[in-house]
């Protein structure tokens, strides 16, 4: 998809030099496909090493077949939707909550000094280790999973945010003050736009942590979700389904990250980046 974009973009941009640019687009798509091809080759190669390996590692084709089976009977979409929904809702909530806290910590040195030790304490607790407690207090329903996920997202995002906000160049604040900005105007018209890239970075990191935590919590307790699909498949020794679950998680996380990057490129077009 993105290699197609590259081809189209470069081809249109400089009509006079189409040949070499189209060539470059082709090279790009090859470069993008290469690591995946290597991965696939390694996968097949492992299977061909011995019969024992071939028994433990399903062939890509078998996984694909299982995928189309589960896609047709609607099981895979159901699990996928359950997991994606949990991640989206909980990570959004966690990041949303981290914004005011991150701002307070980034802006007020006093708050940062007082609260950083506690922040580090809670941040160090693996969310997965909280799952038993959460189940004890909130049952095995959606709430427990949402809390664990939100917890993971919040503490990940808050650190990214306050680090970013505490590094806002003071010159912009001074310039706005010298033009007459009061506290409210300074916040809404200078600090907020400068913080937006950090909010998006925080969301990206939290999304990654969210997927990790989600699957762990689904492994422990869930009837629906890619984690529980993997768990059930493991007890019936359906290795193809395990592979299918993992690949689905990876692809979904990849797509979500891609969407966020596109969004942030659009929103913070003004940022000076080091371009390749």
């Amino acid at each position, binding site marked *: 998809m993105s290699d197609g974009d590259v081809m189209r973009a470069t081809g249109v941009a400089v009509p006079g030099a189409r040949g070499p640019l189209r060539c470059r687009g082709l090279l790009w798509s090859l470069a993008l496909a290469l690591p995946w091809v290597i991965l696939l080759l390694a996968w097949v190669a492992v299977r061909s090493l011995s019969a024992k390996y071939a028994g433990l590692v399903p062939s890509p084709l078998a996984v694909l077949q299982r995928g189309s089976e589960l896609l047709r009977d609607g099981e895979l979409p159901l699990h996928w939707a359950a997991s994606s929904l949990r991640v989206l809702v909980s990570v959004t909530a966690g990041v949303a909550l981290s914004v005011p806290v991150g701002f307070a910590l980034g802006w007020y040195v006093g708050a940062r000094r007082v609260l950083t030790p506690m922040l580090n304490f809670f941040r160090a607790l693996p969310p997965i280790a909280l799952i038993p407690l959460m189940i004890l207090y909130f049952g095995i329903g959606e709430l427990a999973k949402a809390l664990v996920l939100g917890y993971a997202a919040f503490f990940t995002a808050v650190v990214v945010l306050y680090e970013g906000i505490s590094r806002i160049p003071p*010159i*912009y604040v*001074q*310039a*706005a*003050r*010298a*033009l*007459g*900005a*009061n506290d409210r*105007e300074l916040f809404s*018209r*200078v600090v907020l*736009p*400068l913080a937006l890239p950090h909010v998006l970075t925080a969301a990206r990191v939290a999304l990654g942590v969210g997927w990790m935590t989600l699957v762990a919590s689904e492994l422990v307790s869930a009837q629906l979700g890619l984690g529980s699909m993997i768990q059930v498949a493991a007890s019936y020794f359906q290795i193809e389904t395990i592979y299918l679950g993992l690949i689905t998680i990876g692809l979904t996380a990849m797509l979500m990250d891609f969407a966020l990057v596109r969004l942030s490129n659009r929103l*913070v*077009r*003004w*940022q*000076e980046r080091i371009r390749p």
Partner: protein
Amino acid sequence: MTRLPPPAGSAPASALDGEIRFNDVSVRYDGIPHGGWVVRNVSLTLRPGEFVSLIGPSGCGKTTLLKLAAGMARPTSGSVTLSGRPIAAPGPERGVVFQEYGVFPWLTVRENIAFGLSLSANRARLADRDAICTHYLQSMGLADFADALPNTLSGGMRQRVALARAYAVNPRSLLMDEPFGALDAQTRLVMQDLLLSLQQEERKTVLLITHAVDEALYLSSRIVLMSARPARIAEVIDVPFPYPRDERVLETPEFTRLQAHLRVRVMEEYARQQREDRITA
């Protein structure tokens, strides 16, 4: 060129209007040699509409003086006043121009210039916002870049935006901390002429910090030479060239003589600063 609407609600001009006065100002920071004094007993008055340059060895405390006038720092003793009133905080009646521009990267050129005009502190000028923006876009030679983002502009262009943004809110005075220090020599000359013509149009009280002796001579009506740290006033020079000035000033024997004199005096203070730094290091 469009005529600029007169500043709405401007106070009747008094004798003090726009005057910046440093009254026996001293500043002390912790953890610095000489008992922490960076500025010692500086008294200086910038008359309304006067263009004063501060020159002196780097790190001598010039920027501290500018920060006091901007309201970004407080004197340990003494006081700084604008139009007779003590300066307590940054405010729109004192524009600040930084060496690193400080142009807001997320706003276009026009939006940068309009930024101050839409703040509640400058409500009086809000009605004329578009006219003011257009005026400064033209007089600064930025009209073709009105909708550009700063990251597409050169350093000189960015500093034009910063100047326009500062002038747009019609401050009584302008404080400039080596505004052209990061620019190449040619751009510097162009910017100096631009500043002279702006000053010709609307007389502000200007405090300019610079390393460049020729820049100080070309632009200012008075030059204050600062000593090595802690900063004291070492010498005050009245620049004899009448305004409006142009490059012909640079070829006069008087310019050459003053330039040579100031260079020697700055180097003396610079050498003293180096000695002091070695002793206290």
